[in-house]
């Protein structure tokens, strides 16, 4: 049986509590992984591994490819970032590759260093929901 949105949110909350050592109450939909929950670089890999484990079933493995959830090496091409800002081409690529991240506000001032501020708990839930439904 397919997981409901509430099930997915509860499972994502468990993953974040375990990976980041945060309080369950702090894991709200709008919380950002970096700013609000204190995620550091290696935590993203930890989160990926834990999501895979949490949502895999014997019938359907839940495997997350590199760059599929977090666009870590997506922005290395010079045509995507100019003077620290993500170009229009870069924004288009983000929308295509990481649709679970809402970049509508990011677009207004697309400084690459601010991109992690747009990764929220909701982004993770959207990602899982979309991937499970695929």
């Amino acid at each position, binding site marked *: 049986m397919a997981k409901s949105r509430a099930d997915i949110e509860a499972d994502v909350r468990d993953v974040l509590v375990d*990976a980041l050592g945060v309080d369950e109450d702090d894991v709200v939909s709008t919380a950002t992984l970096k700013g609000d929950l204190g995620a550091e*670089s*290696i*935590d993203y*890999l*930890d989160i990926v*591994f834990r999501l*895979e*484990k949490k949502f895999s079933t014997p019938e359907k493995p839940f495997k997350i490819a*590199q760059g599929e959830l977090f666009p*870590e090496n997506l922005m290395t091409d010079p045509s995507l970032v100019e003077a620290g800002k993500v170009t229009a081409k870069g924004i288009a690529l983000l929308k295509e590759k990481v649709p679970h991240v809402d970049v509508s506000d990011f677009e207004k001032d697309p400084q690459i260093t601010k991109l992690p501020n747009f990764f929220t708990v909701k982004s993770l839930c959207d990602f899982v929901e979309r991937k499970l439904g695929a």
Partner: protein
Amino acid sequence: MRWMWIDRVIAFEPRKRLVAVKNVSLAEEHLHQHFAAQGALPPCPVMPNSLILEGMAQTAGILVGSVHDFREKVVLAKVVSAVIERDINPGETIRYDAVLERMDDMGASTVGTVDRFSFADNAWAPVGRIELMFSHLDQNRAGTEFPEENFVFGENFRTLLEGAGLRKAGVSSAG
């Protein structure tokens, strides 16, 4: 000189599991400080938990490094959890049993158990459980360049790796 906190690799299943042991000796100077006599309290030499953690990190690190034949610079990135529930005393042997949970280009996660053999009890007893995450340094460099030479699995690991048959004798770390 890197401080080695395991003495020997005793079991190895490629990409899966690695087991190492360490004999704890009163000749190790840190045990005289951990803990020295204080006032009426007698000395109490016990293996520091931080070094038990390092022993597991070296055991699991070799397991992770072996997957790519020690070409990756494998560094401890995160102690996910560490529970140590029993002291380890001089004259006892520590066994680190590390299992590779998950691995990709960026890094790996491991789960390990720590046991100790006590001659007083003539038996192994569980000590704790340690979950770790390792990063492949060159895949996560974030603009930082590291030396070509693999300083992680350098000369200090040579005896261990060659003794366990994980690396052929005479092959240098840079090779």
